């Protein structure tokens, strides 16, 4: 794992993408900091964090798109597979290198509240718990991005899918708000979701039978529930969207609540997608 970590971590420094990420990240945070803190004189660095979340829609995919896809393209996955390393070690090495590089600019912005404190009163607890939540949110998004990268050998495809997925979780709460709680709407949305999940399974397994069974069972179940007692479906889709909205959870921290379930949620999502990436890398062998 150490060797993979070192190689991957170094590669971000020789890669243009690493530099672009750091530059965009620091510029955007710097801009919002100067506007919020120095122009509007808010002493709340957590507002800055709350406003810059949109940049993750672009920054996460450009960092994660190459993680696994590039190895497939360069055929270096054959090298990694033939070395005495398990898939778990390969994926963990890659993930921690990605996370550590990601956290470098984050560590720099962690110093900003200290500078701000020199000019006025700041809320230490809220500020730093928001920063921590921001890092946990990023960690979860990076794991999702890495998983998407492991599904394809084309980095551009990986990037586009990642942008869409991150965008979806970003808009999650807003979409949930505009979707009516009507059971028919929920039913339709769930059917669409079942089909999307089945498509994803198809691309992962390259097998038509399993996704067909999954979508059939899901749609049949939904239809039965819908016709027996459609009140059960009322409002469930917006509720689920809220639950899936990774970005929504950080609001608690910005409002000054140290929400432990959200922390567990972020860590669980991270672990789940690392696990799925390991499966996806392992699966390549069985194709």
């Amino acid at each position: 794992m150490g060797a993979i970590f070192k190689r991957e971590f170094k590669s971000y420094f020789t890669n243009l993408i690493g530099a672009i990420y750091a530059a965009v990240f620091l510029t955007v945070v710097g801009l919002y900091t100067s506007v919020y803190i120095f122009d509007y004189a808010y002493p709340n660095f957590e507002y800055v964090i709350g406003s810059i979340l949109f940049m993750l829609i672009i920054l996460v995919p450009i960092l994660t798109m190459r993680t696994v896809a590039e190895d497939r393209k360069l055929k270096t996955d054959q090298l990694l597979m033939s070395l005495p390393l398990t898939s778990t070690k390969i994926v963990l090495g890659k993930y921690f290198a990605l996370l550590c590089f990601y956290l470098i600019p984050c560590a720099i912005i962690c110093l900003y509240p200290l500078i701000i404190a020199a000019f006025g009163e700041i809320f230490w607890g809220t500020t730093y718990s928001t920063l921590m939540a921001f890092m946990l949110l990023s960690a979860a998004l990076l794991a999702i991005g890495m998983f998407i990268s492991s599904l394809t050998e084309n980095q551009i495809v990986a990037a586009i899918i990642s942008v869409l997925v991150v965008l979806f979780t970003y808009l999650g709460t807003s979409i949930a708000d505009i979707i009516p709680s009507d059971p028919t709407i929920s039913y339709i949305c769930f059917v669409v979701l079942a089909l999307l999940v089945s498509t994803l399974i198809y691309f992962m397994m390259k097998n038509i039978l399993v996704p067909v069974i999954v979508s059939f069972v899901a749609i049949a179940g939904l239809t039965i529930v819908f016709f027996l007692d459609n009140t059960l479906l009322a409002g469930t889709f917006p509720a689920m969207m809220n639950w899936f909205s990774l970005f929504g959870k950080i609001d608690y921290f910005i409002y000054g609540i140290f929400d432990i379930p959200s922390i567990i949620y972020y860590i669980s999502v991270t672990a789940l997608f690392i696990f799925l990436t390991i499966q996806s890398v392992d699966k390549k062998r069985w194709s």
Partner: protein
Amino acid sequence: MIEVRNLTKYYGPHKAVDNLSFTVERGQIYGFLGPNGAGKSTTMNILTGCLAATEGTVLIDGHDILEDQIAAKKCIGYLPELPPLYPDMTPREYLMFVGEAKGLSGAELRKAVAYVCKRTSIEDVANRLIRHLSKGYKQRVGIAQAILGNPEIIILDEPSVGLDPTQIIEIRDLIKDLAKERTVILSTHIMQEVTAICNHVLIINKGKLLANDTPENLSDILMDRTSFDLVVKGDSVKVLNAVQAVKGVLSASILDTEGDTVHVLVDCAKDADPEEDIFYALSDARCPIIKIERQEMTLEQVFIRITSQNIDTITETDSDKEDN
């Protein structure tokens, strides 16, 4: 060293490897020979654990490649078809990475990297980016990676692709040298390579193992007759009559005549040894021999015959040989 049992691999409905079984002994150079798409690379990927077989097992030094993969992979150095290189690293950085992943560290690692750089003569380019190297150098970095850390078994998929003739000879010498204490398996579709370095040949076609023997035995098996190339000075009719009268000669035919010399191809029974008789027969006929040469069947001919032949006949020939 390696034991392969009933290996089968499907890509969807396509059968890439079909019930392959063989064993590999220590200290030998095995040549995997087969036309394009024969299943050579697939088999090598399965041997090295990059690919899982649909059926069958691979034991590397007693360790199952899937169940006990770390122990098994520690014994293997692998160069895939395309050298698996990171273009944004220098060969030295790259080899340090591979060495570390193979479990080397500190002075031992630096020594091992310096050794393989020397053996594959890439010292001059060791600090240049791999991206900027020529194909031959890339191939050599790939070989360096495979032999790094002295693995017991070295598996090379078409190692001489992209190398110039001098480099090919260098690499062949390197492989021969490595095989003194280790086992080498290489795949190729170049016959001379097999004849030049391998002491064992595995011929596969369409995923099936067609032959598994030494290059010499293979040509023996397939040779039901011995041929001689004869250049004789004298009248063609006289020469032909004299040669055909020799015991053991099945047929003789004139290939061409040039001035007063005749070029004759003589086919004899497999076990006949008629050189001396031919000499005296022609000497009696006052037709001096300019050249007489026994024709060896080249591996190339063996290969073409085997891959175009029905598999059953090969098995028959094999069992015939065992009976003898």
